[in-house]
Each structure stands twice: as structure tokens, then as C-alpha cells.
């Protein structure tokens, strides 16, 4: 995908600040842009502010300073459900599937606000192709799925919203290598279907391999941004985030 750099960004953050309570400032004026069709990675140490950034974008956390725009519309300040309805779907840290709802009901929640029966049908069929296990387990309670299955359900549920932008917070956390492979494969596939992806990952090398560009965040500040391939080969990034001595 070679899109011209002048293209209007799908999502843009300008000097965004967010905090927990009065004392902990977790984002200290971050700016970034995500263009249509990209996979952009966000890497950083534990506690750097990655989850906070996604929560601020999706409206789970108020954006205290700065502006967030999506499709040229200001979304900072809107409640989370309105942001979701505009086409941003956030797969949160820890999955947060509905434990006491069945798999089928979890998926129905994803399409809660949609009215296009045909599109819903098509998306559901496609999701069952991506994750056949979910089709078999439709009547099982979400809380009784294995961790990997829950992650698949969380992504599937988000896809049922047919989002333009998918925010993924550590989709590979706690998963066996085969399942991680599967999840990354699916992320690539979703992107090829035209959805833009903003990916937060501890597994920085995997994230950088699949992404086009990446940002590095440290203590609430963006400290680097570049093509993913360049960051992958950057000695400083290698040392800190890729575990290469």
C-alpha cells in the first residue's frame, strides 16, 4: 500500500493529555496521525501510557487537553458510545468480553446499533471463517472460554461493528505462540479488507513486522516515530523494546 503522505489522516491526535485523578498524568501532550488503510503500531514499556492512549481515543477516558479528530470530525469530548458508532472499535486490554453472555450474544452486542441485516449476515459469516471455533461455541458462556478463545471473541465482537478503525490493545497477551500467529494472521487479513488498525503490543518485533509505521511512547510522551522497518533496525529500539543486546 503506497498512499500519498498528503492524504488526510483518518485519526489524528494533537497535544492530547489525559490523567487518572489529579496526580497521575498518563499522557503529556501526544500527537500522532493514522492514515486510512494503515497498520500503525504503538510500542512502549509497561506503564508508558499505551492503554491510556487507546482509552482516550475511544472515549473511555476523558481527553483533558488537545483535540482528537476522526474523519475530520472532532471526537474528543464525545461519550464512548457515540465514538464507537462513528466507526472506531476498541478491543480493550484484558479482552473484557461479556462473561455472562453467550458467544452468540457477545457477537450480537457488537452489532447492537447496526440496522443493515445483509451486512450483519455477511460479517458474521466472515467472522466464523476467521474463527471457526466461535461458530462451534455459540451457546457457551463467554466467561467459560479459554483465554485465547476470549481474545478471538473480543476481536470478533469488535469486527461485528464493522469499524473503519480498530484499536487493538495487546491482542497476543498470554497466548500460546500458535494462537499468537493466528491472531496476527487475522490482523493482517482484517487490514487487507480495508480496515485501519492501531496496534498496541508488548511483542514489539511481531507488531513492527506487521505494521507500516510505528510510534514509541515513554512515560506519556511520544519519543520516536518512523517506518516500522526502520524502527525494527534502530539499535536503540532494538535494545529497549526488542530485547536485542
Amino acid at each position: 500500500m503506497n498512499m500519498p503522505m498528503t492524504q488526510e489522516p483518518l485519526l489524528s491526535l494533537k497535544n492530547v493529555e489525559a490523567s487518572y485523578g489529579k496526580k497521575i498524568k498518563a499522557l503529556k501532550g501526544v500527537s500522532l496521525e493514522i492514515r486510512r488503510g494503515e497498520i500503525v503500531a504503538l510500542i512502549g514499556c509497561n506503564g508508558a501510557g499505551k492503554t491510556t492512549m487507546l482509552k482516550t481515543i475511544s472515549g473511555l477516558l476523558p481527553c483533558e487537553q488537545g483535540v482528537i479528530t476522526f474523519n475530520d470530525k472532532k471526537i474528543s469530548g464525545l461519550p464512548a458510545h457515540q465514538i464507537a458508532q462513528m466507526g472506531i472499535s476498541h478491543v480493550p486490554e484484558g479482552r473484557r468480553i461479556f462473561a455472562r453472555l453467550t458467544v452468540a450474544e457477545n457477537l450480537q452486542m457488537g452489532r447492537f446499533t447496526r440496522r443493515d441485516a445483509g451486512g450483519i449476515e455477511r460479517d458474521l459469516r466472515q467472522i466464523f471463517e476467521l474463527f471457526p471455533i466461535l461458530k462451534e461455541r455459540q451457546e457457551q458462556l463467554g466467561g467459560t472460554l479459554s483465554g485465547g478463545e476470549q481474545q478471538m471473541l473480543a476481536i470478533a465482537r469488535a469486527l461485528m461493528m464493522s469499524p473503519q478503525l480498530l484499536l487493538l490493545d495487546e491482542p497476543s497477551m498470554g497466548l500460546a505462540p500458535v494462537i499468537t500467529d493466528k491472531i496476527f494472521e487475522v490482523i493482517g487479513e482484517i487490514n487487507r479488507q480495508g480496515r485501519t488498525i492501531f496496534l498496541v503490543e508488548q511483542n514489539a518485533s511481531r507488531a513492527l513486522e506487521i505494521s507500516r509505521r510505528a510510534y514509541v511512547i515513554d512515560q506519556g510522551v511520544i519519543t520516536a516515530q518512523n517506518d516500522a522497518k526502520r524502527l525494527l533496525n534502530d539499535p536503540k529500539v532494538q535494545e529497549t523494546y526488542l530485547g536485542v543486546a
Partner: protein
Amino acid sequence: MSPIVQPATRNGAPGASGAANSASGRNPQLLMFLEQLFNALVLGSIYSLIALGYTLVYGILMMINFAHSEVLMAGAFVGLGVSILITPHLSGWLAMALILLASMAGAGFLGFIIERLAYRPLRRAARLAPLISAIGVSIMITNAVFLWVSKTTLPFPKLMNDRVMRLGFFEASSLQILIFCTAIILLTCLEWLVRRTMIGKAIRACADDLGAASLMGINTDRMIAITFVIGGMLAGAAGVLNGMYYGSIKYNLGFLPGVKAFAAAVLGGIGNITGAVLGGFILGFLEVMAAGYLPNGNQWKDVFAFMVLIGVLLLRPSGILGERIAEKV
């Protein structure tokens, strides 16, 4: 004391004492037990309707809606008002249905208003704040009815001839049967709403994880409001059924059934819908059986019911069905 704690023998509602007489050749003990059992089902169904309101709200907001008993009371008064208005023109089934619907609508609306004015502004406040707000609302509503409606017990008009009906080999009053059937229909409607409809599923999703539900595009504030309306409607129905059952209502009638239904919700496992219904029926059963079989039972039945409640909670602190699915990380 509010009329609901009186035994089911007042104002023509036949109960324990009338039961043994109807034994015609069969085992009188068994007959009395069966009739007591039916009394328990009737009382239990009313408790269940009320308990659902507590459990639905707790499920979604982790908050005890202490104003719920006043919603129940207000529902009974709306029912009385409408029955005074319409009984000169209408009677029988139609009148009864209208009264029930009006009190459900009135109580549902009151539930909505309470949430909007007393709880929503405190959504992000400390846990204790909405609790205190709830108690304040409860006192306000009770006193508003006390001051502006009536300080004394008002008779609830008889809407139908209360006949004794034979059910198989035991007898029950038609009013009791009507109350029981109405409650069961409402419970079934709620079950269907919560299990099968998108709104119901969204309410359960909100109860699981409000934040995650909002990420699905679900307007969680609206779901919370709907939950209060549903709980209010059930309480309103319970209030009017209760008024019909005992034949009178008073400004403080919400308190005791409110406390008992709350206990029933806790007993079943607060937040659990099936648990609330189960708890309601268990409490009704304990109360009726204590009244019928313990010496001086009528005075001791509440004590007995609450003793059992405490016993169960000591063994199962989260209530009978209050198990949580372990969340995997």
C-alpha cells in the same frame, strides 16, 4: 404497621384459618398445607416482582436503590387514584387491567425520574453518595404522600367479587388466583425481555461491564434508565396487587415489603435475576409457613424469615445463586 404484614385472612382474602374448614373428608392437614402453599406462592410472587427491581439495578450499578420501596408505594397510590376515577364507569377485567397498567406506567416513570435526578448526577461520585441520595429520595416521597395525599389508611376499592374457587381438591380465592397469575405473567415477560430481546441482552452486557458495553456503541445511560423503568413497572404492579390483596393502602406501605424483597434479592444472590425470583418465593414460603405452623407464628414470622436469611447468608455469603464466573486474564 403496614397492611402487608398482616396475615392473608383480612378483608376477605382467605388464608390459613379458613383453610382447614374446607376439608371435606380428605386429610385436613394436607389440605391446609396445600392452601398454605398457595398463600406462599401468592405472597412470594409479589416479593419476586419487587426483588427484581433491586437486583436489576444492583446488577448494573452495584447500588442498592433504597427508593425502590417508595416506587412500590407510589404505584399503589396511582392504582388507587385511577380506580377511583374509572370505577363509576368501568368494572371487572377491563378496569383491573387499566389500573394495573396505569400504576405500572406511573411507577416506571417515577423510577425513571429518580434515576435521572438523584442518581445520574452522582454516577462518578464516591460509592456512598448515591446511597445517601437514595435514602433522601425515599424519605421525600414518603413524606410527600403523607402530606399531600393521605396520612391515614385508605380503602382500596373492590374491583371484582372475590369468590372462592375450587382448584382440584383445594380452594382458593379468585383474587389470589388473579394476583398470582398476573405476577407470573409479568415474571415471564421479564424473563423473555431480559433473555431474548436485544434490549435485555444489552442490559445484561451493561451489568457485566459498562465500559465494554459503551465500546459496542451501546448508550449505557439509556440502558440504566430503562432498567429503572422496568424495575419501577414491576414494583408498581406489585404495589397495586398488594393493595387489592389487602384492600387498603397507606403512605408507609412500601417499607416492609421493600425490606423483605431486598432480603429476598440478597438471599437469591443480588444481581442475579433468577435468584431474585427464587429468593422472593423462598421468603414468601418461610413467612407463610411460620405464620401457619409456629406457635404465635403471626408475630414471629418476620423474625423467623430473617433468621433463615441470616443462616443462609452465613453459609453462602453471596446468596443462593450469587456465584461469579471466574474471569480469565
